[in-house]
């Protein structure tokens, strides 16, 4: 038992450095997914049939393949084919980010479409251009509605990030595996690995819950609990 603690004690700093890699990976991918996902959602709702068709194809592609297949396809396949010399970490952010943008775009699209059509009409009747109405009226409301779905995307992406182990990103699981094979003590090491993931998931979801409460529109849906 004591030896287990010794192993954990010695492995912990090394594992925690993996935490930073994982957080960087997830942060980068979520950010990239957000930046691409928003215009994609807007394009799918308000764009002409060519634009929305193109976006549907993109979403179909990234949602249709296992994340591991995507990683291999891009990292070992496409990136080296076009002579793009990326580190495993950067490649992982790109692939997870592109994939996440497909999912995120659908979260945002659902939120935009759940808004009453009258919001856009009212904005336009004031003389707002369509993009202004989207920016000042539609997105501020749609983003609020999107937080619970987005929180889900965070939790899923965080856990999916562990598969980047397969292309050699030195994140938490990679490090756990490395120590476990050297010390022959898989149980305590993978337990630590699990605890770290749970803390990260719970912590992130908690932060998003707080955000959701903070930006809640007063009076909106307040009576729902009473019905």
């Amino acid at each position, binding site marked *: 038992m004591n030896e287990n603690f010794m192993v954990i004690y010695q492995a912990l700093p090394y594992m925690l450095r993996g935490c930073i890699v994982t957080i960087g990976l997830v942060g980068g991918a979520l950010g990239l997914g957000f930046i691409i996902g928003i215009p994609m959602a807007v394009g799918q709702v308000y764009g002409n049939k060519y634009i929305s068709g193109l976006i549907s194809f993109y979403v179909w592609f990234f949602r249709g393949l296992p994340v591991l297949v995507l990683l291999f396809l891009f990292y070992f396949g496409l990136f080296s084919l076009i002579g793009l010399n990326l580190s495993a970490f950067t490649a992982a952010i790109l692939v997870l980010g592109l994939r996440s943008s497909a999912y995120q775009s659908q979260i945002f699209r659902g939120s935009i479409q759940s808004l009453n059509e009258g919001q856009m009409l009212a904005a336009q009747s004031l003389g707002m251009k369509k993009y202004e109405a989207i920016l000042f009226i539609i997105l501020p409301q749609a983003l609020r509605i999107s937080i619970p779905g987005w929180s889900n995307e965070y939790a899923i992406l965080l856990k999916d990030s562990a598969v980047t182990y397969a292309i050699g990103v030195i994140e938490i699981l990679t490090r756990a595996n490395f120590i476990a094979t050297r010390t022959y003590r898989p149980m305590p090491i993978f337990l630590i690995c699990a605890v770290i993931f749970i803390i990260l998931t719970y912590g992130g979801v908690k932060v998003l819950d707080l955000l959701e409460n903070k930006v809640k529109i*007063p009076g909106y849906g307040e009576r729902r609990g009473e019905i």
Partner: protein
Amino acid sequence: MQNNKDIIVLRVEDIHKKYGNEEILKGVSFEIKKGETKVIIGPSGSGKSTLLRCINQLTIPNKGRIWLGDEEVTHDKKDINRFRQKIGMVFQEFNLFDHLTALKNVEIGLVKVKKMDKKDAKEKAIEELKQVGLEEQANLYPAQLSGGQKQRVSIARALAMDPNVMLFDEPTSALDPELIGEVLEVIKKLALSGMTMVVVTHEMGFARSVANEVIFIEKGKIIDKGPPYKLFTNPDNERTKKFLCKITELYGKSEE
């Protein structure tokens, strides 16, 4: 003053609108002079709302022209946002921006569209809310307001843009009966203050007391029009008579 009253603010010329194979509007024309209030009545599905939306091009008509003063609205798509600023619109469902307070709802058009200075915009917005009796509710969100209050905010929002003409699309149809009065009061006051208005409504008492002219639309066509006393007491048209009888049965005589 006499001259001023003869200025035509809005002219609608032969508007046609088709959805699929169904022709909603089959050539509607009318004009409205400065300070006039026109009330449009007619059975539901007759194209009244579509007509209002064609005026500010929220719906693009298949044929026909709209003139605001001596400028053609339907002439150039690029200019449409300039015209929309001058055509205030009030919707049946209020359509307040749910994420903004009453004050910000009124302010946002001034700041984002008219590019007004934030401080001036706020002052003007408060002034407009005062006009509809809601300055105390300025910091409440739409979900915290009653239906009647929401509609008054939406009127203030449209008025803040200093429109040349106001369009009301059944402004009281989504309201509880006891809230209709406060909204009609505001619209009446507006009519008396000389605002030019086109009002689609089923409130016959209101039509009688403020309209300069009542237009009866059915199946996409104007089938009767005239001053309210003429139309309500002694309509020439048999169809108008029938419709008014039905409406009176439904809504009671009036609230004169």
